């Protein structure tokens, strides 16, 4: 059989490969992608491992390659581990787009960046600072230390912290985007740093778990918590004051844009070169930036006032 089948510009057979399939965050991204697929009359499917383990993603890439999908849209669990397989796919003429978490740049054509890494990193520190009036020990609860996006954000957070002499970052903990681990890590942070004032968790799983611990440990309001999360999973904590405010881009839009980008690639409208532009349905026109990065836009801040307007 011809591995490169299906790349005729007409057929849109686009597969999403998230870090893990059973993660509400990626499910809402998938919802957006499905919307785009409907608009473009293309096919959409989402496959992936049940655990966020890099090596688990590779067989799926291979399978998709064999199936000759027209494009793979991936959120890389480990930028380099998936690279060889993705390169094989590209060699077979399959377009590769990364979203949410980038791969090695030479293993994809375009990276859909949910928000400028810098914006997110800096703004989260600012949000937290305003909650703890610029003083005290803070900690970061990240996903995995290999997650490209996480590390980039953390980089800018540390830089932003220089502006707040009275705030000190005491620890960066890793919850592996796993609920129990994140929960225990939060518990560990609180125990290890009795004077902890605030936690930033730039991951949807992490922030939810952290919020839950703070609530059960009766620390709501005592330790401030912010980060990136989905409104649905944090709504109750925002209402009971465990979380005053948190950020996120519109995940649905992320998937939506990623699908349009992939489609544009498949249809040959773009190749991924800097400066190329394409239109993404209701989101309007986007321009490809340096080394194939497309920016979704600034993040939204969710708080008690606006949270009920969102459902994802």
């Amino acid at each position, binding site marked *: *059989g011809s*591995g490169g089948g299906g790349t005729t510009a007409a057929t849109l057979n686009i597969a999403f490969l998230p870090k893990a*399939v059973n993660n509400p965050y990626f499910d809402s991204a998938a919802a957006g992608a499905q919307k785009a697929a409907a608009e473009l009359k293309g096919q959409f*499917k989402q*496959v*992936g*491992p*049940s655990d966020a*383990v*890099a*090596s688990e993603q*590779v*067989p*799926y890439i*291979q*399978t998709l*390659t*064999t*199936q*000759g999908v027209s494009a793979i849209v991936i959120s890389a669990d*480990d*930028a*380099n*581990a998936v*690279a*060889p*397989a993705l390169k094989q796919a590209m060699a077979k003429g399959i377009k590769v787009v990364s979203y949410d978490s980038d791969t090695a740049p030479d293993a994809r054509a375009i990276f859909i960046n949910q928000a400028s890494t810098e914006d997110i990193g800096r703004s989260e520190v600012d949000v937290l600072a305003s909650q703890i009036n610029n003083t005290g020990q803070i900690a970061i609860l990240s996903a*995995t*230390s*290999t997650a490209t996006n996480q590390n980039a954000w953390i980089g800018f957070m540390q830089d932003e912290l220089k502006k707040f002499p009275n705030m000190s970052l005491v620890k960066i903990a*890793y919850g*592996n985007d796993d609920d129990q681990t994140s929960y225990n890590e939060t518990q560990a942070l609180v125990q290890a740093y009795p004077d902890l004032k605030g936690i930033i968790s730039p991951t949807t799983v992490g922030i939810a778990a952290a919020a839950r611990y703070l609530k059960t440990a009766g620390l709501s309001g005592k330790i401030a918590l912010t980060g990136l999360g989905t409104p649905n999973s944090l709504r109750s904590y925002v209402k009971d004051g465990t979380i005053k405010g948190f950020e996120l881009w519109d995940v649905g839009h992320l998937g939506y844009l990623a699908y349009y980008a992939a489609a544009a690639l498949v249809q040959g409208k773009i190749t991924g070169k800097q400066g190329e532009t394409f239109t993404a349905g209701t989101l309007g026109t986007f321009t490809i930036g340096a080394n194939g990065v497309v920016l979704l836009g600034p993040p939204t801040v969710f708080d008690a006032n606006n949270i009920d307007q969102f459902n994802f």
Partner: protein
Amino acid sequence: MRRAIRLISLWEALLVALLLGAVVLGSSLSPYFLNSNNLSNVLSDLSEKSLMILSMLLIIIVGEIDLSVASILGLSSVVLGDLWMHNAPLAVCIAAALAVGTLAGFINGLLVTALGLPSLVVTLGTLALYRGCAYIVLGQLAVSNFPDGFTTFGFGSIPGTLIPWPFVIFVVLAVIVILVLHGSWIGRQLYTIGNNQVAARFAGIRVARIKLILFTISGFISGLAGVIFTARFSSARADNALGFELDVITIVLLGGVSIFGGRGTLPGVIIALFVVGILRNAVALADFPTETQSIIVGGLLVLSVLGPNAIVRLQNWLTRKRVFATLITYVQRSRT
């Protein structure tokens, strides 16, 4: 159980049928299944497990078990990565990874033979210990920037063919194991130990020494698997191959090897290896949800032992009914 032995040949026949079934299923589920690239992917995905079943088979045949293989894989992968991160030459890194694996296996062996502890508990302990050591060394870091040559070895195929490099290693080792296990005096001694440890000792077989060697080999193989894994994903991480031990043991048992030792053949296990590999691949190709795989594998595992038992019980029941007795004996004759 005794009578079940007569059924081993039958069991291997069943496995072959199962294998064919899997192939048919695969090709009917997806047009891409028989595509040569895909088959090459199947082999590639089995790279580490195919090696690990070899040593696991030997260990289970002498009536022991090694739960720590996946952790040893992770540890040696991490050692390789850590040294590479500190700019050691690749050859040194690989040698070190193999050495660490071998040492880990040797320690298992010592605990089992010298102290006479049950291997189930010992390797349960080292399963956690070795994985823990891997985390201690590399934490959550991942070392990736390996040279292309290394990655190609792990991920690429023999030029001009679609045979992945690691599979070549498997073929070579498999041939050796077949010869040793089924053709040499050593193999005979292994089965003897598994069947009757006392009799083995009374016959002058050095039981403890042999077990020590086997655990050490298992460690080495796991280390080798660690190197291959690292190459395949150009990524050395502490959580590499987490949980592989279950797959490996499952495949071995599915291959008709008795968990009590003394019974089982490599051909059977190899067939089982491909049954599992192909089923997983077929199910994924057909876009079945991930969980279908684990359900199928688990079901096969239980059936692999339940099946023969059930047949034996049926036989006993029938033989008690004089009418069928002759029929049964006839069937058994024709089988042997």
